[in-house]
């Protein structure tokens, strides 16, 4: 069966520090991968998605970047965090087209102080 992992689960970082969040999927091949951010009590904002290794589409211009160095690995990064980067970061995957159901990871709760 397929599983999706995210780490760390929680993170507290000072403003201006770098960020690296990792997401890995097991039990499937060539998944579509997504990064979402959810502010407290708010909806899901799509940040990046990827249909294959090295293929990244960005939804919102900001100080975040994403990379997909391996088929089932998706990394979210920042060189300098802002206060507004605080939130709940969710990684998700699905197969074939974007119209298929998405499976979400447990998320990383990031607090920037």
């Amino acid at each position, binding site marked *: 069966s397929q599983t999706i992992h995210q780490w760390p689960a929680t993170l507290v970082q000072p403003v201006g520090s770098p960020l690296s969040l990792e997401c890995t999927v097991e039990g499937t091949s060539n998944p579509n991968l997504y990064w979402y951010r959810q502010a407290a009590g708010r909806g899901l904002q799509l940040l990046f998605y990827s249909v294959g290794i090295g293929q990244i589409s960005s939804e919102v211009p900001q100080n975040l970047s994403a990379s997909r160095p391996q088929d089932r690995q998706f990394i979210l990064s920042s060189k300098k965090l802002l206060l507004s980067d605080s939130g709940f970061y969710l990684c998700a995957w699905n197969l074939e087209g974007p*119209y298929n159901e998405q499976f979400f990871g447990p*998320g990383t709760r990031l607090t920037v102080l």
Partner: protein
Amino acid sequence: GQQVMQIPQYQHVQEGEDFTTYCNSSTTLSNIQWYKQRPGGHPVFLIQLVKSGEVKKQKRLTFQFGEAKKNSSLHITATQTTDVGTYFCAGYDRGSTLGRLYFGRGTQLTVWP
């Protein structure tokens, strides 16, 4: 651009009362998905509707897709405390540039015992 609006943002009901959340799109959707996110958890896929006028049921949950494929609703009959959480709709627009899912902001349901 594509938007998916969801109302209400919050709903507080007493256990046993019914609950409905509504989703409206600015464009015709290819399909619509519904997700549930428990407090502190991650979104979990509930169902997908594809056909115009489609109605699907899962126990006390009834999902509808409008005839014009621009709106959808989720109705819960006789709510229970286990129904607590945020319900998201997500529409897929095949005509969008990136072909991605558009999430509504969610309806946060609180159920009083």
